[in-house]
């Protein structure tokens, strides 16, 4: 399990290569990469604020929960904070499992929880000013689908 919180840019491919090549028993690797929305060209920068004392703890809790629910060989969660440019990678999760379905479901689960349980807040800057990204009801209710099963 690897949890990374950083302001520096990252290359999703470099991380995926490292993650894939360290697998000894997995048959399936799924990755999700989130990119900064460009707002049809209007976005100048995105600023991501976080709660440093809580961030690592929250990401670890989410990753540990995924490991408890699915038969995973490995999990990676990386999230950036600070200033980002349009189309830059914001965050990445990767899961490795013997089973394809487990790798897919766990990655999907991690994303749902990251969206509404990890202490990050996005602010978008355009020529017209800046605004905090609002959480959607979808994001907040998405986690409930994992509670039913």
């Amino acid at each position, binding site marked *: 399990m690897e949890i990374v919180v950083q302001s520096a840019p990252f290359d999703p491919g470099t991380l995926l290569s490292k993650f894939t090549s360290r697998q000894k028993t997995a048959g399936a690797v799924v990755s999700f990469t989130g990119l900064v929305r460009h707002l049809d060209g209007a976005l100048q920068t995105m600023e*991501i604020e976080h709660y440093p*004392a*809580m961030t690592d703890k929250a990401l670890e809790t989410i990753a540990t929960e995924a490991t408890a629910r699915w038969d995973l060989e490995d999990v990676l969660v990386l999230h950036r904070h600070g200033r980002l440019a349009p189309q830059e990678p914001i965050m990445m999760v990767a899961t490795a499992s013997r089973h394809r379905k487990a790798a897919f479901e766990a990655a999907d689960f991690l*994303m749902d929880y*990251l969206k509404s349980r990890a202490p990050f807040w996005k602010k978008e800057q355009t020529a017209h000013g800046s605004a*905090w990204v*609002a959480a959607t009801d979808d994001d907040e209710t998405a986690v409930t689908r994992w509670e039913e099963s």
Partner: protein
Amino acid sequence: MKIDVLYFAWVRERIGEGRETVETDAKTVTDLIAELRSRGAHYRLAFEDTTALRVALDQELTDFDAPLEGVREVAIFPPMTGG
């Protein structure tokens, strides 16, 4: 008791600072917010609609009725938008 209170995102911007230490006898987060509102317009604006807020006690998400006893750090912020 003395407690550290942290604010993030637009809650921080409305209040005008990210962290303060408050002396309080509040039993719950709801009580604490009621006290803070009495400090002025900035606070009332930040805490206008508490359904739009989330809270963590000692870095664990919880709800507004959670007891403050033994807690060292309260964080109040909008719904998170990571991912």
